[in-house]
């Protein structure tokens, strides 16, 4: 095996990692790293130096707009994933968490509450049975005298509890003293399991859940494996993946690689008694060995070399503590390595059994609390690597205690950062017998066994989560090797290329490339009803669980197929096509922008570099608004909703950032579209019959029963209400959409009812936010209504010349205002004209009798032009009925405000409207009043 004649220069130091103050978002860009003199054999035309990070690489372009489902959905799997909202206290400030200064607060009380409600028999069974004679829950009084002494009436308490339930999520809800007293009294004896003990257990469990929510390493290595075709000529390989209700079924599915990969026949299926965490495979002597790891069991299957052969299970081992790693030897048939959380590393041979190589609960190089261990094979079949979070050690299985060397250390040796930890080590034997890949949460390292401790290549990958999955596609005859990295929570997928290791030193070639995530196919699926859309979104953004890649040649066209497994058991794939070298580095951006595809509601559609970018917060707010409105819920729990929508693209609920632009192909090909449909149909069909559909996890709702009584509601519009109810019921029965919320055969404008009831008035005012203005005077509104009606009529009569005049007046609005204020009358600021119109003391005209005023002589004498006199007369005739009331009805403008436009949009245009509406009054002082 050749070793590169010269390596790239680098410093070498020992000791702990130097402090670099956390992750850098752009750490992987722009560096050449180092340079090295080119090989002497090269032509003169070549530049004399080559960089560690070269920009020339093979060009692979995605063939589809998004990932495409390969297999039918795993319909059994409906278990919803735990979210932070389930675990954390609502409204607790989590910002400190990010800085690492303080932890989150776990809401174990909520979990306890759920337990009490869902399993009352388990929680209070025996005491409930004992006491149920003594508690009276009915509405009536306790009649029997004998019973009266031993029975307590609990009706009020129950009602109080119901009230509480109704106000769930209300920021102002308070516990009543009665409830507090009761809980105080019965805390010690009511529960089946002592409350403190139960709470302790729940808290402990929540801690575990929270830890796995933050970072779950149980799926390290990935549960998807590709068994390549028998020989180069055949195109049929096999995918091995978990599925089923609890991901406890192991499937071997034949897949034919053509233009598009397709499944052939039914998969061979094995049922296991545990959730499958990892599937590892290797080919030795023409036979595939597949290792399967669940928490407490590891098994190995053999796939014989003959075509049409069936996989056969060989052996199963059981562990006391959860296993963290299972790898299959690429050198010797039936040999695997197993690690457990207790710190033990075993070499597992099918024939000779288990051999413990190492047992050390402590970590290798410095103290780290993680019990995670990993082990893999190396170029020497008897030498195994043992890894924990602090580094990697290689040891000889023949003399594990004495023969070992340090292979990788988190420290200055590899120029690590503080806090950096090993996430996944992987032997790259298929690319180069001596190479090793080590990923950490910040960077990837390429190591050569012949030069331990010094990485031959390092690159900061900048992924949002630690890469738990990796696969390598070896490049033959001088071509670059492709390394794929995948994360679990964020479904990120990155393609890197590197060359070297034999004659030349290792080089990273070409810019790294992001591939489609599973969630990226959501916009390409056929349009769905909101509930189903929500379901799909949840389904597609479930964390990834595995990754496999294969290079494949179809005629002249080379393609790279990448398979992805989600934790729900769905398998997706994407194809990358190799592009011929002439256009060495293709600028895809130019092409993509030639045909921009704005996506509705997609922030990414904003033109690049537009100033709107920095106002994104406002956009987000608007988005929230529309979100509220499109929901049918009466009140949406504000805080939780905010938490979901405010999240930047990186939030796992929508792992694909909204920023994602569409690459060259924008729409899925017909074949892909068909696959989407075919995948969707069984999924939705299964969902309808599943228990999950019965409890859609939408935003929490609040009962409206306690806000208005039925009587009050019925008064508003008895018919309409009935109809709404009917329609709603029917829609719910059909699981359909409520398309027209307004079925009422009402005329578009409400009839000028002479007796509008008090409730509607209150509601109208409430919409306008003018609680204070609602006085007991019902007649006010009546008069205002009449006035509005009259004015409308006048307007219709008026020539449009006046209209234009009113516009000019609106322009001079501000100046007039200032004139007004000069006049010494106190006014509220113009920013809230409506409020001003109602609340400011009406600037009552001098108490002159209307009759006198109305006479034309009087008007003339006051210098009012002829054309204005009639208007004024009409106006004043209304005044005559109630001279104490303000002349303008707030309802005309308040009516506009009922349209739920955000308050912040009270822009100049609406101001001008308002001013034109209130024009007559402002003109008055000039008219000589």
């Amino acid at each position, binding site marked *: *095996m050749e*070793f590169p004649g010269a390596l*790239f*220069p680098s*410093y*070498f130091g020992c000791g702990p990692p130097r402090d670099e103050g*956390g*992750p850098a*978002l*752009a*750490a992987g*860009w*722009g*560096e*050449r790293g*180092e340079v*090295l003199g080119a090989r002497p054999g090269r032509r003169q035309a070549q530049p*004399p130096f080559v960089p560690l990070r*070269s920009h020339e690489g093979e060009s692979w372009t995605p063939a589809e707009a998004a990932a495409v489902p390969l297999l039918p959905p795993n319909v059994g799997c409906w278990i919803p994933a735990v979210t932070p909202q389930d675990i954390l206290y609502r409204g607790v400030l989590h910002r400190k*968490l*990010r800085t690492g200064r303080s932890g*989150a607060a776990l809401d174990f009380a909520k979990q306890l509450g759920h337990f009490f409600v869902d399993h009352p028999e388990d929680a209070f069974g025996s005491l409930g049975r004992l006491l149920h004679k003594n508690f009276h829950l009915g509405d009536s009084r306790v009649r029997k005298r004998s019973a009266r002494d031993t029975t307590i009436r609990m009706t009020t308490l129950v009602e109080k509890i119901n009230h509480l339930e109704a106000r769930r999520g209300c920021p102002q809800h308070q516990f009543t003293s009665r409830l507090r007293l009761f809980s105080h009294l019965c805390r010690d004896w009511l529960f089946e399991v002592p409350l403190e003990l139960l709470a302790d257990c729940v808290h402990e469990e929540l*801690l*575990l859940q929270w*830890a796995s929510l*933050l*970072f779950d390493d149980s799926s390290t290595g990935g549960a998807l494996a590709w068994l390549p075709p028998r020989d180069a000529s055949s195109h049929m390989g096999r995918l091995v993946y978990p599925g089923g209700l609890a991901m406890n079924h192991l499937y071997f599915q034949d897949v034919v690689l053509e233009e598009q990969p397709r499944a052939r026949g039914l998969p061979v299926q094995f049922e296991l008694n545990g959730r499958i965490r990892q599937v590892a495979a290797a080919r030795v002597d023409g036979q595939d060995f597949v290792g399967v790891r669940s928490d407490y069991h590891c098994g190995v299957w053999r796939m014989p070399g003959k075509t049409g052969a069936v996989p056969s299970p060989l052996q199963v081992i059981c562990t006391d503590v959860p296993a963290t790693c299972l790898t299959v030897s*690429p*050198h010797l048939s039936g040999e695997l390595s197993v690690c457990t959380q207790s710190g033990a590393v075993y070499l597992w041979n099918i024939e000779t059994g288990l051999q413990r190589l190492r047992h050390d609960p402590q970590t290798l190089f410095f103290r780290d*609390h993680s019990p995670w261990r990993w082990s893999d094979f190396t170029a*020497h*079949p008897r030498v195994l690597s043992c890894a924990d979070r602090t580094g990697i050690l290689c040891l000889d299985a023949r003399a594990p205690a004495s023969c070992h060397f340090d292979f990788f250390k988190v420290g200055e040796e590899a120029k690590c950062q503080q806090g950096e*930890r090993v996430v996944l080590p992987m032997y790259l034997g298929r690319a180069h*017998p*001596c190479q090793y890949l080590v990923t950490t*949460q910040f960077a990837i390292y390429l190591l050569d066994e*012949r030069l331990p*401790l010094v990485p031959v290549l390092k690159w900061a990958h900048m992924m949002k*989560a630690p890469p738990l999955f990796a696969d390598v596609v070896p490049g033959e005859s001088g071509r670059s090797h492709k390394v794929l990295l995948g994360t679990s929570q*964020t479904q990120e997928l*990155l393609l890197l290329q590197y060359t070297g290791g034999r004659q030349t030193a290792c080089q990273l070639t070409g*810019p*790294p490339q992001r591939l489609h995530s599973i969630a990226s196919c959501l916009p390409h699926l056929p349009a769905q009803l909101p509930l189903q859309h929500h379901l799909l979104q949840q389904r597609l953004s479930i964390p990834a669980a595995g990754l496999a890649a294969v290079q494949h040649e179809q005629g002249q066209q080379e393609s790279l197929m990448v398979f992805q497994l989600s934790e729900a058991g769905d398998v997706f794939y994407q194809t990358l096509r190799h592009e011929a070298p002439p256009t060495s580095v293709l*600028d*895809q*951006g*130019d092409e993509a*922008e030639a045909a921009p595809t704005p996506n509705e509601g997609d922030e*990414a559609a904003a033109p690049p*570099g537009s100033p709107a970018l*920095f106002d994104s*917060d406002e956009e987000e707010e608007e988005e929230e608004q529309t979100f509220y409105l499109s929901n049918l819920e009466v009140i949406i729990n504000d805080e939780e909703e905010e938490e*979901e929508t*405010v*999240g930047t693209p990186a*939030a*796992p*609920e929508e792992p694909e950032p909204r*920023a994602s*632009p569409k690459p060259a192909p924008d729409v899925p090909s017909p074949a892909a579209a068909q696959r989407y449909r075919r995948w969707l149909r069984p999924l939705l069909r299964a969902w309808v019959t599943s228990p999950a559909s019965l409890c859609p996890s939408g935003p929490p709702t609040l009962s409206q029963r306690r806000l208005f009584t039925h009587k009050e509601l019925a008064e508003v519009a008895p018919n309409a209400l009935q109809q709404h109810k009917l329609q709603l019921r029917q829609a719910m029965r059909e699981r359909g959409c409520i398309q027209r919320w307004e079925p009422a055969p009402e005329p578009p404008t409400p009839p000028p009812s002479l007796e509008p009831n008090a409730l509607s008035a209150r509601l109208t005012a409430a919409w306008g936010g003018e609680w204070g203005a609602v006085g007991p005077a019902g007649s006010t509104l009546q008069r205002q209504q009449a006035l509005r009606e009259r004015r409308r009529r006048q307007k219709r009569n008026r020539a449009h010349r006046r209209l234009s005049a009113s516009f000019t007046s609106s322009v001079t609005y501000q100046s007039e205002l200032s004139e007004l204020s000069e006049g010494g009358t106190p006014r509220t600021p113009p920013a809230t004209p409506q409020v001003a119109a109602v609340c400011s003391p009406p600037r009552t005209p001098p108490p002159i009798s209307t009759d006198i005023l109305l006479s034309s002589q009087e008007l003339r004498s006051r210098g009012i032009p002829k054309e204005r006199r009639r208007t004024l007369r009409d106006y004043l005739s209304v005044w005559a009925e109630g001279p104490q009331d303000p002349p303008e009805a707030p309802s005309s403008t308040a009516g506009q405000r009922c349209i739920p436009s955000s308050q912040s949009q009270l822009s100049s245009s609406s101001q001008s409207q308002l001013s034109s509406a209130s024009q007559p009054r402002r003109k008055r002082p000039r008219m000589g009043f």
Partner: protein
Amino acid sequence: MEGLRAGRALQPALHLPFLPRHFYRAVSSNEHRLNFWKSKELCLSYIQDALLRKQWKRAAEFLTSYIESLEKDFSTVFMGPSEMIWRIGTEILCNHSRSNIREFNSFIEQMKTLGVKRYLKVCLEHAFHLLCNGLVDEAYQNLSLAESWRFGEQTVLQDKEMKLIQAYRGLLDYCSWSNQKNILLEYGKDGLEDLSVAQEMRACFRKAAVNLKEIIKIPGVWDLFVKSYVDLLEFYGDHQEAREVLTDYAYNSKFPANPNAHVYFYQFLKRHGAPKKSLISTLKILHDIVPSHELMIDFNAMLQKSKKRKRRRLGLEVIFAVLDYSGWKENVKAWSCLARQVKQIVISEKHLDWIKEQWNSRKDWWPAFHFSRYLAKRNWQEDKSLSYEKALVAGILLGKDCKYFKYVSHQGCKARVRRFRTLKKFVNEHSPAYLRISGL
């Protein structure tokens, strides 16, 4: 979970690069700052996305917006916006189809003035870029300029970067020196008398030597610099110094165990006709560090020729060790070395215990690793001579009933190849040797 103790229990098990945003919420008190920070982060994620999808133009447009973040740079983080802009800008300019070296230079010059802390790093990377584009002279100027830079007290990192800058300048001096040397050699010996050229070369040598000598004292991987420095010293006849440098580079315990260091030393010794003993001891150390190194074949040949028993024994050990590695699994040369030596031993019937000793630690896995029936088939199909050598070894080590030997010899006889027939005969004749090796 003992690790999850109070205090730090609620923090991730791993220091995560980016905690998902929905895990924490904004506070209203410093909302303005937060908004700016948020939009900055959003912009950066757009840039990142464009870069990862090779949309250089789009990334460039976003970057122009991102430059605004410089205005309110009150960050104390390790990598401030100035460095990010430098990194992202460089990446875009390197890949953009319509960028040229002039634009690149002017961008980098601006970047140099932007971040004082990273000045040296930017200079170094600029020089690398120029070098990779064949602009050696410009790179040299840049490096000299950077070398004269002074700013306050230097940090450890800056000190390292400065040393690297000097080393690379030394390397470029060496390059121009070797160019002149080539010219001189091309025009014959009379050129050497041309004093001006010789003096110039001497000047280059001095400049290069000073800088290169500095860097190779510091622990690290300096293959390039060591090679150049040794070349210079050798040309001017300073073999002692060259030897010291190479010895230090190979055997200083502060340096990483770099196989190349041993290779250079070995090659130096070979060039200067060092005694066999020192060559062997050099390679012995290399064997201990990297048993799978390609020089081990030469080492084995050298040892086999030796008359000392001890060395021949070592030779057998070396070749066995080489074949332990999967990279050598199908190497005909290595197998023929082993076959030859094993055959010799078997014929002489002496030192069968050497084979036995080597075989003992391998007999439980070599049969599956090297001599399975599947491999017999495949080797026969792909490389007849490989299967011949392997069959010989298998026949001796595992006896004539071994699957590999049986298959290959059967196929060989069927194909009527003479040497396979003699192979079969040889193994049959020496089956007692097998018995002794396997300890039966």
